[in-house]
C-alpha cells in the first residue's frame, strides 16, 4: 500500500471512532467536498439536505455532499459506506446484507441502506460482475421509493449508466437529461456533459460538441461546477479531435494540463487521459500510448483514471504489437481495479 492510501486509512479510522460517539449522542455528520458539517438533518430532498445546529438551519446542496453519517444508524452501514467509497462494491454489498432493515428507525438511514445496496449492485453490474437488468430494476426501485433522498441525482446518473451498459441509449439519454430539470447549474452542466459523452461514444461528435459547450456554459462561474466544467472542457477537446481538429483539441488539453497544479495528480491524470483520447481519435497510437503511460507511471494514485489508462493501454499495446506489455496492463487492471467500470469493459 502506498503512503497516501495508508494515510487515508488512518484518517478513516479516526473518523470512524469519532463519529460513532457522535452518532450515539445524536449528531448527524455531513461530509462535504470541502469540509464537514455536523448537526441534525431535518429535511432531505433530491436537491440537498437541511441541517440544524443550535437552532440555526442551513441547506447543503446535493452536489456538495460526499456522504452523510446519520445518528443511530447501524455501524455496519458506515463500514459499507467506506468500502463503497473505496470501490469495494462486493464487500460493501456483503456488509449491507448483514443489516436488518427492520431495526433501522430513521427513514434517512433506510434511504441510505437502500441507496448503497442499489449502487453496489449497479456498480458491480457495470464492472461486469453482476446482472445489469437486475441492477436497473433495483436502482429504479430506489428512485420510485425514495423520492426525497439527496441520492436521487446520483441514482439517476447511475440509472443512465446502466441503461447505457445495457445498450438502451435512448433511455440512458433520457435519464441524463432528467438531471437538467434540477434548478442547479451543477446538474444542468452535469446533464449536458453526460449526454455529450453518450453522443461522443456513438460517434456523433458534432452533437457531442454542442452538449459539451452547453455544459461549460451552464457551469459558468459556479465553483461547485468547476469539476464538471473541466471535464466538459477536456471531453470537448476529445470530440474536436475526433472531428479532425486534432491540433486544436490537443492544444486545449495541453493548456488545461499546464494550468493544473503539479500536486493535483488526479486532475493531471484526467488531463493526460483526455490527451490520450484526443490522439486516439486522431489515429496517433504512439502519442496516445505516451499520454496514457503518463497516467500509468506518474499519476497512478488517481485510481479511476489509472484504471482507464490501463484499459486504454491494454488495447494500444495490442495494436502496437506488444502482447506482453498488453498482458501486463490487462493483468494490473484486473488485479488492482477488479471492480472498476474499465475492468468490466
Amino acid at each position, binding site marked *: 500500500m502506498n503512503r497516501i492510501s495508508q494515510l487515508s486509512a488512518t484518517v478513516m479510522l479516526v473518523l470512524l471512532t469519532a463519529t460513532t460517539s457522535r452518532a450515539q449522542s445524536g449528531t448527524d455528520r455531513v461530509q462535504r467536498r470541502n469540509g464537514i458539517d455536523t448537526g441534525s438533518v431535518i429535511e432531505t430532498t433530491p436537491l440537498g439536505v437541511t441541517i440544524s445546529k443550535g437552532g440555526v438551519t442551513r441547506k447543503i446542496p446535493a452536489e456538495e455532499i460526499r456522504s452523510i453519517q446519520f445518528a443511530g444508524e447501524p455501524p455496519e452501514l458506515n463500514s459499507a459506506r467506506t468500502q463503497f467509497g473505496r470501490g469495494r462494491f462486493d464487500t460493501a454489498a456483503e456488509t449491507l446484507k448483514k443489516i436488518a432493515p427492520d431495526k433501522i428507525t430513521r427513514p434517512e438511514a433506510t434511504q441510505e441502506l437502500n441507496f448503497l445496496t442499489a449502487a453496489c449492485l449497479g456498480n458491480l453490474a457495470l464492472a461486469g460482475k453482476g446482472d445489469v437488468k437486475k441492477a436497473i430494476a433495483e436502482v429504479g426501485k430506489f428512485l420510485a421509493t425514495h423520492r426525497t433522498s439527496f441520492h436521487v441525482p446520483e441514482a439517476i446518473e447511475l440509472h443512465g449508466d446502466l441503461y447505457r451498459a445495457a445498450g438502451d441509449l435512448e433511455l440512458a439519454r433520457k435519464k441524463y437529461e432528467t438531471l437538467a430539470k434540477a434548478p442547479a447549474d451543477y446538474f444542468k452542466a452535469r446533464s449536458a456533459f453526460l449526454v455529450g459523452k453518450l453522443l461522443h461514444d456513438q460517434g456523433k461528435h458534432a452533437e457531442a460538441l454542442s452538449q459539451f459547450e452547453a455544459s461549460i456554459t451552464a457551469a459558468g462561474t459556479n465553483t461547485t461546477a468547476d469539476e464538471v466544467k473541466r471535464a466538459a472542457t477536456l471531453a470537448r477537446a476529445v470530440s474536436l479531435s475526433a472531428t479532425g481538429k486534432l491540433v486544436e483539441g*490537443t492544444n486545449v*488539453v*495541453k*493548456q488545461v*494540463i*499546464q494550468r493544473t497544479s*503539479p500536486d493535483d495528480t488526479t486532475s*493531471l491524470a484526467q*488531463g493526460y487521459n483526455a*490527451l490520450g483520447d484526443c490522439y486516439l481519435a486522431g489515429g496517433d497510437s*504512439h*502519442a496516445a*500510448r*505516451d499520454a496514457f*503511460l*503518463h497516467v500509468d*507511471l*506518474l499519476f497512478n494514485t488517481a485510481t479511476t483514471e489509472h484504471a482507464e489508462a490501463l484499459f486504454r493501454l491494454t488495447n494500444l499495446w495490442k495494436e*502496437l*504489437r*506488444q*502482447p*506482453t*506489455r498488453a498482458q501486463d496492463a490487462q493483468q494490473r487492471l484486473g488485479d488492482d481495479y477488479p471492480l472498476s467500470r474499465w475492468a468490466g469493459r
Partner: protein
Amino acid sequence: MKGHAVSHRPSLLYACCTVWRKRSCCALLFAAPYLWGTQPLTAQEKVEADYPTQFLEKLRQRGWHDVALEYLERADEDPLATREFLADRDYHLAVTRSALARQALGEKERQSLLQQATKSFQKFSREHPDSPHYFAALSQVGNMLAEQALATLNQADRLPADAVSEQESLRTRARDIIDEAAAAVGQLLASIDGTLADLPRGAALQANKRASALKHDLLGKQAEGRFLSANLNFEKSRTYRKDSSEYKEALQTAAASFAQLRKNYENKLVGFYAVLYEGRCYQNAGDFEKALDTYGELVSQPIGQLDFRKLIARAFRYRAECFLADDQVDKAIEECSEWLDQSSREELEQPEWLAVAFRLATAYSTKAGSNEASGDASRLRTEARKLYREVSRKPGEFQDDARAALALSGNEDAKPLEVKGFAEALAAGKSALEQMNSAQLAVRLAANNNPEGVEDLQHQVDSQRAAALNYFQQAIQLSDDKTPAEDAVAARYYLCWLYWEDGRTEEAAELGEQIAEKHPDSQYAPTAAKVTLAAYERLYLQAKNSGAPAADGWAEKLRNIAELIVDRWNDSDAATTATNLLISLALRDGQFDEADRLLAKLPEKSRGAAGLSLGGSLWSQYLQQSADNNIPPGDEVLELKSRAAKLLAAGYESLADARDVTPAQAAGVLYYVQVLLAEGQADKAVEVLENKRIGPLAVMDRGGSQESQKAFALETCKAALRAFVSVDPPRNEDAIAMMERLEATTSNSGASQDQLTGIYVNLGLQLQEQIKELTARGDKAKAQAVATAFASLLERVAQRGDSQSWAVRNWLAQTSLQLGTGLSGTEADRYLEQAENAYRDILATVEKDPKFAPSELALLAVRKKLGEVLQARGNFEGAVDQFVAILTEKPNMLELQQATAAALQAWGIAKQDVKTIEQAIRGTKPQADLKNLVWGWLQLATVADYAKRKAQSADGSPQNAETVAKYEEIYFEARYQAARARLEAAKLATGDSQAKQFGTVRQSIATLKQLYPNLDARWQARFDALAKEAGQ
C-alpha cells in the same frame, strides 16, 4: 562554475560488463568513480525531478528504451516538458540510444547504434558546454569511442590470418577511433581541471555543500578520465604489428601513464588497478620478469573485500600467462591451484576466476603434452578437460577457447540423454548446442593447424546438431503452464535457429513468427523476427523464381513479419532491412507512393541507408526497363530514374559523417555515381568516386578477395573510367590508369577478355551518346573534348587482340562513322576516314575468309555502311556505286533504295545537276526488263504504298499494324523527298520554268493533302514547310 549532474553510475557499471566482456579488463574502465569512491547524493541533496524526467526514468526502469526514444523525439508535445528538459533532450536521446545499443543482440547492430549514440553525445557536448550533463556527455563520448575501437580490434582479431590487408585496415580504423576517444577524454579532463580551479577552497568549500558535492563528483570523473586516457594508450598498442617499433612505443607510453596514475592514487583501488595495467604493458612487451614483479606487488597485498579479490585474481591470471610464456609450467600450476583452492564457490563462477581456471587448464594440458611417456599425462589431461568444461559453461572471455579445447581433446560425453522434463531437455539441448559450437570453432582452427582432423570434427558438429534439434523438440513437447515463459521461448528460438541452419525454412519461419508475435519483449524476439524475415524472403523468392502460385502467399507473410519488425523494433537495423523488403514488395506492385511512405516511416538515421538501398533497387529496375535502346523509356520508367536519383543523392548525403560504409552502402554509392554519369554530372561523379572515406575508389582500394568485392571493383573501374573521360577537361591519364586497373582486375580467361572488350564497347556507346547530346546542345567544344578522350579508348580497343572479332571491328567502324557525322571539318573527316578504312578492312577480310561474316545480312549491312561513309565524306559517286552494286544483288531492299535515292539527290544538289536530281526522283539504271534498278523516290513511294495496303488487308494483329506503320513511314518519306528534290531542281531553274516547277511542287503537296486529309501532324508540318519554301 558549471552545474552539477548526478552520476550515471548504473549505466557506466552496466557498460563495463558489456563493453569489455570479450576482454579481460572488465569492470574497471567505467567503474572509476566507484574505485574513487564517489558517494551518492543524499535524498535531501537531490533536486526534485520534473515530471518528464520522472517519466523517462520510469520508462528506463522498465527497460522500455524504445518508448523512451519515441517519447524524446516528440517530447516538445508533452505539455509538462519544461524548457530545461527540452534543452537536455539531446543528452537524454543519446543516453537512450546507448541503452538501446546495449540491448541489441547482434554485434553489427550494436556498433551501429553505439556510433549514433556517440554522435549524439558529441553533438550535445559541443552545443551545451554549460549543461549539467556536459561532463557526463564528454565522458560517454570517450567511453563509447573506446568501446567502438575495441570492437573494431576484436573484429580484426577474428579475421583469418591471411586477410592481412583487411586486418590492417580495421586496425588503422581502430587507431583513428582511439585518437578521437583520447581527444574527447583530454577535453573532459581539461574541463574538469578548469571547473575544479573555479571552486571555492578551504572553509568556503566546507560551508558550501553543493560545491563540495560537485568537487567530489568531479574528482571521481577525473579519476575515470585519467584511467581511460592511460588505457587508451594501452589499447592503441594493439593497433600495431607486434614486431613494430610503434607497438613497443605505445606500450611504453601506456606503462608510464599507469605508473603516474598509481602514484596519484596510491593506496586507492584505482591506483592498484593502475599497477595491474602497468604489469600488462610489460607483459605484452615481452618483459615477463618485470611484469611478474609488478603483478607481485598486488598478490602480496593482504586479501580483503570482493572487489580487491577480483583484482588479485586477475593478477594471478596474468602471472600464469607470464609463467606459461616463460616455460615455467609448474609455477603456473602451483600458483593457480593454490589461488583457486582458497577461493569460495561463488567466486569460482566469476569471470576473473574462470580466467585463472582456463590458464590452469592450459598449464595442465601443456604439461601433459611434454610428459607423454609418464603415467601422469592422462591424469593431467583429465584435470585439464574438467577445467575446460567448467569454463566452457559460462559466458566470458575464454568460453570459446575452452569449447575449442574441449572439442580438440575428444568427445567422450556424446551419449544421448534420456530427458525427463522440460528443464532437462532444454539443458541437454543447450549443452549439445554448445558442443556443436565448440566443434565448429575447432573445425575452423583445424583447417589451418590440423587438416586431417577436420572430417572427424565436422562429424561431431553434425551429430551435436542432430542431438540439439532432438532435445529442443522434446523440450517444446514437455513444456506446460508452469514452464518459465522465457525458457519456453528459448527452446523455440534455438529450434527455430537450428531449423533455419538445416534448411527447414518453413518450420523456422513458423517458429520464429510465433516468438516475434507472441513474445516481443523476450530477448530472443528480435533475432527470431530476423530469422523469420529471412526465411519468408527465401520462400518467397524460391516460389517467385519458379513461377509458383504460392509466391503471393509468401509475399503476404513476408509483408506481415516485416511490418511487425518495423512497428516493434523501429530503431534496429532489422527494421531497415524489413522496410527495404516492404519497399521492394510495394515496388513489385508498382506502389511508388507506398514505397515513399515506408521510407518516411523509418527513423531519420536509418532513412539514408534505406534510401540508398531503395535508390539502388530503383536504379537497377530503371536499367533493366530501359535496356531496349530502340524503345524510348516511358514516363513510368523515367519516374523510376528520377526517384532513384533523389534517393541515392539523399542517401549519399546521409553518409557525410560516416567513417566507413557497409558493402550494401558502398553499392548504393556506386549506383549514385552511375546516376550522376547518366545525368551528365561527371564532375560530381568524380567527386563521389574519390571521396576518401566512402567513395567507391577508396572502398575498392580497401578491397578484398571475395567474388562480390571483385564485381564491385569491376563496376567501380567502369564508372571511374567513364567519369574520367567525361569530366571537363577529360582526365586522360587517370582514364588510362583506370583502364590498366580494369585489365588487371579481369582474369586472363577468354570469357573475361570478351567481357572486358564488351565493357569498352559499352562504354564507347555511352560516350557516343554523350557526344551526340553535347553536339545537339551546341556544346561543340565539350563534344570535341569528350571525343578526344574517347579516341584513346578506341585506340585501346583497336590494340586488343580480340578486336579482330566481327562485332568489335564493326563497332569500331560504326563508332568512327557516328563520331565523324557528329563533328565537322577536318576532325570529322579524320573519323570518317577511319570508318571507311575500317569497313573496307572488314570487307577485305570477308573476301579472304567468307566465314568471317556472321551472316549474309550482316555483310550487306557493312557494305551499305561503306556507302554511307563514302556519302558522308562527299564521295557521292562512290556511294552510289556502292549502293548500286548491292542493289544488283538485292534490288528489292527498300532501305537500300532509300539510301541510293538519297545519295543521288545529295549528289545532284552538290554538283547542281538537275539530271541527277531527276534520277533521284524517277530512278535510273534501266535493266533488261526496262525497269530501273534504282527506283527513285516516286517508285519507292508506289512500292511502299502497295506493301502498306497489302499489310492492311491482312489480319489486324499488332505485328501487322507495325508493318503498316513502317511502310506508311517509307511512303511519306519518299513523297516528301520527291517534293524536296523537285524543289531543289526548281531552285536551279530560272524564269517561267522555275515558277512552273515550284507550282508542280505545290501541286504535288496539295494532292497529297487531299488524298490524306487526316495526315498526321508531323508530316503535315513538314509538307507545309516545304510548300512554304516553294512559295505558297
